[in-house]
């Protein structure tokens, strides 16, 4: 019968089918990125612990890994890759714009400029 669906109870979720598919894709991506982050962390420990890289390159190497991690965090877990996130992005950029000069100036003033 055509009216069969009327007797079915409503779904609990108010999301549309498209939104649900989108969400599933998103969760999958988050798992992949999460494993990637764990891998990067392990890589940093192993690289230094097992002397895989030259000593004088160790700190820059770890910093590079850290920056990659930071970007992945911001893009995937802070949702900066998503559309409709303009305000969050504005605040993130404002924050970086304000803190960066502050931290640089503070380090110069106190005289701690090693890395």
């Amino acid at each position, binding site marked *: 019968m055509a009216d069969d669906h009327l007797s079915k109870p409503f779904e609990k979720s108010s999301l549309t089918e498209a939104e649900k598919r989108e969400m599933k894709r998103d969760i999958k991506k988050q798992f992949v990125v999460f494993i990637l982050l764990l891998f990067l962390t392990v890589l940093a420990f192993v690289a230094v612990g097992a002397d895989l890289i030259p000593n004088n390159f160790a700190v820059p190497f770890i910093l590079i890994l850290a920056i990659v991690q930071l970007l992945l965090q911001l893009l995937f877990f802070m949702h900066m890759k998503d559309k409709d996130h303009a*305000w969050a992005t504005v*605040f993130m950029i*404002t*924050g970086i*714009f*304000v*803190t960066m*000069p*502050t931290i640089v*100036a*503070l380090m*110069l*003033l*106190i005289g701690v400029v090693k890395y």
Partner: protein
Amino acid sequence: MASYKKEKGVVWDWLTTVDHKKLGIMYLIAGTLFFLKAGLMAVFMRIQLIMPENSFLTGQTFNEFITMHGTIMLFLAATPLLFAFMNFVIPLQIGARDVAFPFVNALGFWIFLSGGLLLSTSWFFGGGPDAGWTAYVPLSLNEEQLGLDFYVLGLQVSGIGTLISAINFLVTIINMRAPGMTMMRLPLFVWTSFVTSTLILFAFTPLAAGLALLMLERIFDAQFFNPAAGGNVVIWQHIFWIFGHPEVYILVLPAFGIISEVIPAFSRKRLFGYTAMVFATMIIAFLGFMVWAHHMFTVGIGPVANSIFAIATMTIAVPTGIKIFNWLFTMWGGKITFNTAMLFASSFVPTFVLGGVTGVMLAMAPVDYLYHDTYFVVAHFHYIIVGGIVLALFAGLFYWYPKMFNHKLNEKLGVVFFILFTIGFHLTFFVQHFLGLMGMPRRVYTYLGGQGLDEFNMISTIGTFFMSAAVIVLVINIVYSAIKGERVIGINDPWDARTLEWATPTPVPEYNFAQTPQIRSLDPLFYEKVHGDGTMKPAEPVDDIHMPNGSILPVIISIGLYFLGFGLIMLEMAEPIVSPWIVVALGGLLTFGGMAMRSLKDDHGYHIPKSVVKADLKKLGGGK
């Protein structure tokens, strides 16, 4: 699921309320009480300084008073008083039914209050903190002074409240605007509150970090600042002023906003240079972060750093100047009504310029070696804080009072108040410029006679008596007006003003707008008066209104934070009555238990049925 509202007793209603209007009024009351307390301390300090070698207060009490006066005035008086207006006015001005997170709003208020009370508890445990509101190390590492532990933890707790309230305002202004209320149609008070909330977000975090370091050092014997253990005392100064300088703008920007509301309303003109005002606000906020080291010219950070920070500081005069001229041009050619609100707003402009000019003088690093830590600095920042923020608060109080309390404040008493306050203010602080130039250092509890300081100190103290008399007149005015003041019930718009809050019925119903209004212009109410029929066009049909439930949890969480802080302080006490860890655990249980309860229990709010809204519309709507 959502249910209908039950009737509550008055006390229970106010303890559990999440209504932004009631919270605004509670902020106003709490802020006023702290303001009176800190003001009384100032009067006592001036009485001590009325003549040379006076012995009204001991040096120790004097130190405790300067510290508590500054700390309370900035954190517990000016901030909540501005938050009072922000809470009450922002949702009304953007056409919203409440702030974005009503529960968090209530939580912010109660946490602020418990932090303030924790700080004040220090009086019962060996006296208040005595290292100045800046709490410079190593002076503030003094283990003998329990008051400093109260300073550290009290500010930490009240800072959490301020921070979450600010985040709430940001989300509210971004997400809760009525249809047609674009960012560039926001009233300037909303704009400045928005920028201020951003500043709080970025500035209170370094403060929290700095206070955490100081707490670790004082209570848990860490060694961040102690030079004997390889620490660095200058780091505290940097962290403090990275917070402390933006804090000044956190306070003064909403004050600018109030002035930008009052002046157009009583000049019967739209604000001159709206766009310039918005961008000047943002530039001031950004530069406010980049100038902190001008408090530290004499620390010895070197000529290059001093010059950079000196020039950055002077740059702030440019956007501020833009604002000053825009206010002047708003008044220029306007049909000005000089009632009390407008008297305060218009006298704000020259007074603030006086404070700004001495600010530029202090920004000149070489000359600052002369001004540093003298009464010149005291005169400068009181011209900014009293001549700027407090005058704006009084203007805002007289302007928004009818909307908040359904009756006007008495104008005659208001004018008396204004005259007494202006005389007292300039008598007190103008001569302090000269005291400073003569070399009288700040934060001293007495001085020797015959050095040319006697007369000016006497004049300054007499000025504070005038200011005290003025505040007493204000209190009389509030009591008198509550009994006999002109009622404005049923009159939406007693000032014939321009912005949206004056389109709501008086008294404002708990849902603010029966129908969300459609905004068609900047100064929407004024636009409708000229181009429409004087009432806002609705953007939606009359329907059930979804409202948040009240909750006692904010109070419980805040009480928990109080005991959490107090327990940590007890670790430093010689012989606590119970083990401090029991108090900490109890506080933690209350706080985190309250948070868990909020998280685990669904609260869907309730609905005001359509029939009630319709009846209200018939009763309240259309009043002019």
